[in-house]
C-alpha cells in the first residue's frame, strides 16, 4: 500500500486537473483548440496546430481583441472521437469559438456546436459542411461550421478544370481519361462524386475508381491497373502516407500519368519522403503564397512564426499558413462582434458574414479573399495549383533541401471556379 498512496494522489490530482475549468483571466475571451499532435494525422496536424497556437499568441501580444486577450486551451485529442467529445463538454458553456481539426472531431461535434451556437473553424474542408440552411445534397444544416479554403470537392473540381485545359494545351487527341484513386473511406470519398461529375461535364472519360488503403504498403497491383487503363489524370485522394507508397510503386512500375494531389495528401514533407516519385505531381494550395514565396503578407506570417521559432530558420509548411489565415478570420469576426453587441458565438457568426472578399489585415497576398454568406459557407472558390519538382537528394531538413533545389514548388495556375448553386453541399 506504501507505493500506491503517492500513485493515488497523482491520479486524484490528474482527475481534478482534467476537470479544471478554463482559467478565465480577467475578461479573457475563452476559445477551444483541438489538435492532433500524436495521432494518425499528426504529420499534418502538427504544423496546422502550431500555426493556430502561434497566431493566438501573436494576437495576444498585439493587445488581444478589443482589449481582451484570447484565453485558449489546446487539447490534443489524438484523433479519438471520445476525447474530442469530452474536451468539448468541458468547454461548452464557456468558449465562444473553437478552432477544430479533422473530419473525426468536426463531424462528431457538429450537432453539439449547432445547438450551442459556437462557431467551429475546422481544418476539415468537407463540402457537406458548407450549407448553413440545409436542403442541399449535404442533407444537414451547418450554420456554425466555417473553414478557410476551398472545399475538398471544389479543390478537386478545380484540378479537373486545370486537367481539361492542360489536355488541350498538350494537344491531346480524343477524350482524356480521369480516374479517382483513394480508399473507401469518408476522407478520400468526399470529393469523388463531385470531381467525377464535373470531369464528365468537361468531356473526360471517367474510369472506375482504383482503391488503395490509407496505410503505406505495396500498391504494385493498383499501378499496373492504372497503367493498363490508360488513364491520363489520376486524383490521389488519400493522406500523405499512402500517397507516397502509390507514387513510389507507380514510379517503379513505370506509369505515365499526371497525378493530382489533394490539400492534405501532398505537401513538402510528402515530397521529401517520396523523393523523385513525387516529381511532377500537381497539387492545390489554399493560400496565395507559400513560405518561400513573395508577398507583403508573408512578413506578418514570418513574425507569427517567430513566436515558436525565435531563430526564424524553421520552414513552415503550407498548412501553417492556412492555419494562420483561419485564426485571423476568427479574430476579425470577433472584432466585429465586439463592436456589434459583444463577443458571443452568434455575433461571431454574424461577423463572419460582415465582409466580402475578405483578406485579414496584414496578410495581403497570403490569405485569399474569402466570402461567407448566411446561405453559402463556400468561402473560397479559387485555388492555386503548384507542380512539385523533386529530385532524390536524400537526407536533410526541408529548408536545406529547398535551398539546395532538390525540392521545388512551381506555381502553374490559379483556377477560379464558378459559384454554382447546384454544387452547394457536395
Amino acid at each position: 500500500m506504501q507505493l500506491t498512496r503517492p500513485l493515488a494522489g497523482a491520479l486524484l490530482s490528474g482527475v481534478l486537473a482534467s476537470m479544471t475549468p478554463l482559467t478565465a483571466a480577467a475578461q479573457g475571451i475563452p476559445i477551444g483548440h483541438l489538435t492532433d499532435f500524436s495521432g494518425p494525422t499528426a504529420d499534418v496536424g502538427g504544423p496546422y496546430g502550431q500555426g493556430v497556437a502561434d497566431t493566438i499568441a501573436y494576437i495576444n501580444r498585439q493587445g488581444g481583441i478589443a482589449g481582451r486577450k484570447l484565453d485558449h486551451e489546446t487539447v490534443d485529442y489524438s484523433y479519438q472521437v471520445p476525447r474530442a467529445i469530452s474536451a468539448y463538454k468541458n468547454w461548452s458553456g464557456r468558449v465562444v469559438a473553437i478552432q477544430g481539426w479533422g473530419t473525426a472531431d468536426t463531424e462528431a461535434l457538429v450537432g453539439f456546436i449547432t445547438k450551442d451556437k459556437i462557431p467551429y473553424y475546422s481544418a476539415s474542408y468537407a463540402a457537406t459542411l458548407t450549407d448553413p440552411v440545409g436542403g442541399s445534397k449535404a442533407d444537414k444544416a451547418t450554420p456554425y461550421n466555417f473553414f478557410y479554403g476551398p472545399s475538398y470537392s471544389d479543390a478537386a473540381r478545380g484540378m479537373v478544370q486545370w486537367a481539361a485545359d492542360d489536355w488541350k494545351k498538350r494537344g491531346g487527341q480524343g477524350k482524356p481519361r480521369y480516374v479517382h484513386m483513394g480508399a473507401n473511406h469518408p476522407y478520400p470519398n468526399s470529393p469523388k462524386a463531385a470531381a467525377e461529375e464535373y470531369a464528365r461535364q468537361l468531356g473526360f472519360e471517367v474510369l472506375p475508381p482504383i482503391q488503395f488503403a490509407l496505410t503505406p504498403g505495396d500498391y504494385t497491383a493498383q499501378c499496373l491497373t492504372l497503367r493498363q487503363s490508360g488513364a491520363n489524370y489520376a486524383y490521389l485522394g488519400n493522406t500523405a502516407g499512402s500517397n507516397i507508397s502509390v507514387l513510389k510503386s507507380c514510379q517503379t512500375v513505370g506509369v505515365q500519368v499526371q497525378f493530382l494531389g489533394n490539400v492534405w495528401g501532398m505537401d513538402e514533407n510528402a515530397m521529401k519522403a517520396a523523393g523523385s516519385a513525387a516529381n511532377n505531381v500537381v497539387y492545390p494550395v489554399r493560400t496565395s503564397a507559400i513560405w518561400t514565396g513573395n508577398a507583403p503578407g508573408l512578413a506578418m506570417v514570418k513574425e507569427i512564426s517567430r513566436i515558436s521559432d525565435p531563430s526564424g530558420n524553421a520552414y513552415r509548411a503550407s498548412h501553417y499558413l492556412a492555419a494562420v489565415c483561419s485564426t485571423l478570420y476568427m479574430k476579425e469576426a470577433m472584432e466585429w462582434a465586439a463592436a456589434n453587441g459583444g463577443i458571443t458565438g452568434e455575433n461571431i457568426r454574424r461577423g463572419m458574414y460582415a465582409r466580402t472578399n475578405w483578406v485579414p489585415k496584414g496578410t495581403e497576398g497570403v490569405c485569399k479573399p474569402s466570402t461567407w454568406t448566411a446561405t453559402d459557407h463556400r468561402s473560397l472558390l479559387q485555388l492555386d495549383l503548384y507542380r512539385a519538382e523533386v529530385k532524390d537528394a536524400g537526407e536533410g531538413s526541408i529548408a536545406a533541401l529547398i535551398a539546395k533545389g532538390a525540392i521545388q514548388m512551381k506555381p502553374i495556375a490559379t483556377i477560379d471556379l464558378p459559384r454554382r448553386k447546384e454544387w452547394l453541399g457536395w
Partner: protein
Amino acid sequence: MTMDGTLLVQLLLSGLIVGALYGVVAMCFVLIYKASQVVNFAQGEFMLIGAWACWWLLVKFQLPFFAGFLITLAFMMAFGLILQIVVLKPLIGEPIISVIMVTIGLSIFFQALMKWLFGVSAQPFPPVFATSDVNLLGLQVRTVYVMSTLISIGIMAAFAWFFKYSRMGLAMRATAFNQQVAQSLGISVRQVFALAWGISAMVSALAGVVVGVVNGVSPALSFFGIKVFPAVILGGLDSIVGAVVGGLVIGVLENLAHYVDSQFLRWGNLYEIAPFYVLILILMVRPYGLFGTKDIERV
C-alpha cells in the same frame, strides 16, 4: 487478351513477392504463438522499431547499409529478449486473453515512443542499392524486394532446419507441445520463451526495414501487423510452413482480387476485403487453417 495475360502474370509475381514479406512476418507471429501461446498484437510495432533503428543508424552515423542492418538485427534480438524477460515472464500462467491485452498495451506504448523519438512524419530511407529496380518477367521490381525474397527464402530454410535438427529448435517444439513435460526433461522454458521472442523481433525487423526502404518509414508502418492476421490464420496458427503459405496466398489473393475487380466486377474494394471473405470460406471448410494441427479432443 495477351495484354491482360501479361498483366495477370505480373500481378501474380508481385503478389508472390509481397506475399513472401507477409510470410516472413507471419512466421514471426507463429513462432511466438507456438512457443509461448501468446498472440502478439505488437508485431507491427516490432517492424516499426526495426525500421526506425536501421534508418537512424544509416542517417545519423552514415553507416553502410549492411553494417547498419546487421546492428539493427542484433539490437532487435536483444530487445525481444529483454521485453520477454521484463514484461511477459510475470504473465506466464495467466489467462491468455490478459496477455493479449498486455501486447496491445505494449503496442500503444511503443507507437507513442517511436513517434516521440523519431517524429510523426514519413522519412525516406537513404538509397540502399545502386540500381533501385530490376526487371523480372517484364515487371519492374524494386531491388530491395528481390533482396527480401531471397532473404525470406533463406530464413524459411533456416527455420526449417532449426526446428527439425537443432537442439534449441526441438526444445522449442517440445515446449510448445507441452510445457510441463518439456520442463521435466530439463528444458529451460524461460530460455525457450526468451529466444522465441528474440528471434521473432529480429526477423520482424527485417520485414520492417524492407517496407521502410520501399515506402519510407512512418508511424503507419505498424499497420502491416494487422495485415498479417489473415495470413497466419489461413495457414494455421501453429504451423510455420502454414504461415509462409498463408502469406503467399494472401499476397497473391490480394492482387488477383484487384485484377478481377478492375477487369470485370468494378466493385472497388475487393483488394482489401477479398482475403477476408476467402478466409471465412476456408475456415468453414478447414477450421484449423490449411496446415494447423487439429485439436484432438479427448474427454
